[in-house]
């Protein structure tokens, strides 16, 4: 891991692509998580969860994307239809990585609509399980294209609950935990005194200026920003030959 404050513009020592750094950054969310359900939403978090399960978090539970808990080879080891999935969420034995159409500095997330809720400019999915997720189990976010449209000053509809919102309800904060946000530019956490979003690492090839330019609020930036760690040779082999041989990761994140 480098200690540089500014990224290089091209090429990495490991030869890994940006998408592969994103996979590593997502996988790290489940390091040391133990026997819990990894709920990745979106392609790159899914690759990350499977990489974590194959390497440093072998006890993770994974789903087939429908109602079954499955081993890496597809062997069914459990049943998890939607209702039991929600039961499991409230029991806390899960770390979800959700998408975010908008996210703000305190980690409030929106997937419901853009504009005024009463008459939205763009209706999106709806709140889905974001409120229950954020009050019950660790919730991280994945944003494949970091931009000012996504990283906004204030989200239009708070679906996933952020730090400022939960602070007003201390008892509800018992199980609130937003470990990280991963984007195509870097990794972010909330390790600041007021729990505001902080740049935790840059993917190699990305600069602090680039991140600041693509972020619609003032991001906390430490004096020394490390790079997202390199994949090991074995991790690269697993990603390229076993987990995603078709290279679908490069369609979600280019470069």
């Amino acid at each position: 891991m480098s200690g540089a404050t500014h990224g290089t513009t091209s090429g990495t020592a490991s030869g890994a692509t940006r998408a592969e750094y994103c996979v590593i950054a997502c996988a790290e969310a489940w390091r040391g998580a133990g026997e819990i359900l990894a709920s990745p939403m979106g392609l790159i978090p899914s690759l990350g969860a499977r990489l974590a399960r194959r390497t440093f978090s072998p006890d993770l539970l994974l789903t087939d994307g429908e109602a079954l808990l499955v081993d890496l080879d597809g062997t069914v080891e459990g049943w998890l239809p939607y209702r039991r999935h929600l039961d499991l969420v409230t029991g806390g034995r899960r770390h979800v990585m959700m998408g975010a159409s908008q996210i703000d500095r305190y980690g409030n997330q929106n997937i419901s609509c853009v504009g005024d809720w009463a008459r939205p400019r763009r209706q999106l999915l709806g709140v889905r399980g974001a409120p229950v997720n954020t009050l019950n189990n660790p919730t991280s976010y994945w944003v494949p294209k970091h931009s000012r449209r996504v990283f906004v000053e204030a989200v239009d509809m708070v679906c996933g609950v952020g730090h400022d919102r939960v602070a007003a309800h201390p008892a509800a904060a018992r199980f609130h935990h937003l470990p990280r946000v991963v984007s195509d530019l870097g990794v972010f956490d909330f390790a600041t005194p007021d729990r505001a979003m902080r740049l935790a690492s840059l993917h190699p090839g990305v600069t602090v200026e680039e991140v600041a330019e693509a972020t619609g609020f003032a991001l906390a930036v430490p004096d020394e920003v490390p790079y997202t760690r390199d994949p090991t040779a074995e991790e690269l082999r697993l990603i390229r030959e076993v987990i995603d041989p078709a290279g679908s990761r490069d369609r979600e994140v280019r470069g």
Partner: protein
Amino acid sequence: MSDKTMTADEAASRLVGGMTVGIGGWGSRRKPMALVRAVLRAGIGDLTVVSCGGPDVGMLAAAGRIRKLVAPFATLDSIPLEPHFRAARERGAFELMEVDEAMFLWGLRAAAYRLPFLPVRAGIGSDVMRVNPGLRTVTSPYDDGETFVAMPALRLDAAFVHVNRADRRGNGQYLGPDPYFDDLFCEAADTAYVSCERIVDTAELTKEAAPQTLLVGRHVVTGVIEAPNGAHFTSCAPDHGRDEAFQRMYATTPWEDFAERFLSGDEPAYQSAVRTWQKEGS
């Protein structure tokens, strides 16, 4: 032994405008579409629809039948955003009670248990509370003192679900991997209508499948409707998958054109129009 079989049109005719109707399935999966099509034909409107929304919500919204929707989302799964739901929301066509998935599940359970509400650790701190000013909270009477959302019971006048098999008495069986909330919809409702791919003798239900596939009990069922391909174009595993090509066409065809071609006749006319469309495409 009572025979509860009826047609989809008979089931729809039991509804009146202003009722609250729960629709089972999830997104674009095992939706009771034959019953939804019957509601569209019957011209019933002013409905409060309770659903984990898919094309059921899209079609009823496009046809202007929804006064109020209670839902955590609407999606076509392989097409993330339901286009007709979306358009209706963007023109402010109906009232929305947007709740989290757990709140929705707890609301159905409360109704099934005949409770006025159930406490749920979801919603606090989120804008679900802002956009639903009628939602109340409840404080734990024990030492923890935690505040929860008091999710009101989602009591239904009628529930519509679609399953793989049923007997004439109303015992419904699902053979796919996920029951969704279908049994709860039926238990939360004053009347429940179960459509199925095939009606079979009771003994047939457990000849090859395990008894825990018997999802819906006859004690909560009012009517049984045999509707082969009645979930079309949503999935009904393992009987059939989602008709992705048809769904794509649904999502990209202006509503009036779609409705005229596919929804102006009865259910056999719909199925026949689908087959004709499929032949044209092949």
